[in-house]
């Protein structure tokens, strides 16, 4: 348990540094798509929601209900986020590439 937690912390710290490195050079033209694309990624919480929602209604009714609500919201976030980002990016054009 402790080693697993330590490892996860290690992953967390590295990811944060990686995130800072990755994003720091984005041109301001792309700030909105970057934000909505990142927002879609934060819907990854869907993974946790799926586990809760599928844990069996008979034995864990409350977990399943909360989980299903979470699945719904997270899916809106994921599906909507990616689609809207794609829609925006499809409009970013250079001259002559109509």
């Amino acid at each position: 348990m402790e080693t697993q937690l330590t490892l996860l912390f290690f992953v967390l710290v590295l990811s944060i540094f990686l995130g800072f490195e990755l994003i720091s050079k984005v041109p301001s033209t792309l700030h909105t798509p970057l934000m909505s694309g990142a927002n879609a990624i934060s819907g990854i919480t869907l993974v946790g929601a799926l586990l809760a929602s599928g844990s069996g209604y008979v034995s864990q009714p409350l977990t399943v209900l909360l989980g299903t609500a979470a699945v719904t919201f997270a899916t809106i976030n994921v599906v909507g986020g990616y689609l809207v980002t794609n829609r925006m990016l499809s409009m970013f054009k250079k001259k002559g590439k109509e």
Partner: protein
Amino acid sequence: MDQFNTQIVVNLTYILASMLFILGLKMLGSPETARKGNLVSSSGMLLAVLVTLLDQGIIDYTWIIVGVCIGSLIGFIAATKVKMTGMPEMVALFNGFGGIASLLVGSAEYLSGLNQNAALLIAIYLTVLIGGVTFSGSLIAWGKLSETISGKPYLYNGQQIVNSLLLGVILLAGLEMIFFQGMFTENQFQILFIICLLAFMLGVLFVIPIGGADMPVVIALLNSFSGLAACAAGFVILNNVLIVAGALVGASGLILTNIMCKAMNRSLANVLFSGFGAVTTNGSEAKVGQGEVRPINTADAYLILEAAASVLIVPGYGMAVAQAQHSVRELGELLEANGAEVKYAIHPVAGRMPGHMNVLLAEANVSYDVLVEPGDVNPIMETVDVCMVIGANDVVNPDAKENENSPIYGMPIIETDRAKTVFVLKRSMASGFAGIQNPLFFKSNTRMLFGDAKESVSSLVTEFKS
């Protein structure tokens, strides 16, 4: 053995999904690869979701299907129907949904009550707290952006005291949840309910004092929070991919927040706690009437534009409100056909979210390589024949450079006042959102083109065509 193998497959796939997220985000950093990057990151998401469904813990798929179907339908409709001008509200709302989803995941895990040690409880507490703040904060931001509620900063006496008290109670509730169960409340439900409620209150109190013009900072920050909530949820269910993805989003949101703050030359604390505009209007009031305003009509404006060899268009929130981006693009094309060099100067905080103007202009088919940032255009401002300020105000206010008493002193601006001629398209002489007078309007090289931005630009277009 079989279960062991599945677990390995699941974990390896999570690593692959994390890699796809990282690659996708990196590709989002350049206009050429951005669209592909979004696809890469979404395929990472698809992989992560599919492989999760293999998990041994899932014994019933009925409810999952229900949730996914409803969510996909709503997400699809929202994403395809939203107008580009409504994008800030949409992003705010999606942020909130991410937050509430994490809150629910944390709650479900808490109430299932399986071997909860202090570390797990801390993770649950943080997930619920951050998720709740993200949710209610985003709803308020959505309300302000869609003008369901007033965009004015809302300040009251004793705000700091109320906030400090709330934070104190939240801390106490956390201590009870983690270390002293049953100290104040009878059962898990009660304490969870209280923490959710407190988190919602905190989110509301955190966003409500912040004015509409500072929304780019708030949205970027809430974006970061939604990632952090997912990250905390990762510690609840001990899952790598949630932590990696959440941390990436958290970091990217923070960087955007920082960029926005720098663009206003203000600290994050100043944006969050000062209620800009509500308290700083005095001092600038006195300077009203510092000169004469020179109005111009579209016929005269056309003559000047027609003779211009270089035109710089500076859009702001007013262009979004008037939905003038298509007419602006048309005018830009006519100017180019007339032999002028046309550029668009975009201030990082113009509009209501990071990159707001860029999205609107992209929608109107303006090529992204004619969009320039203040740092690129300020050094050559003297060579610009005509600067057209369309619905922007504070980001072109020369007080930021010249008046040390101005609340926006020190903010990097687009120095349009140094262009040969400046047209300001504006409804009336009412001051901008921040309630500050803009000396640009009184400069000798400034001409005011009063009226609705869209109508003004359209009539310029008609002049050009005739």
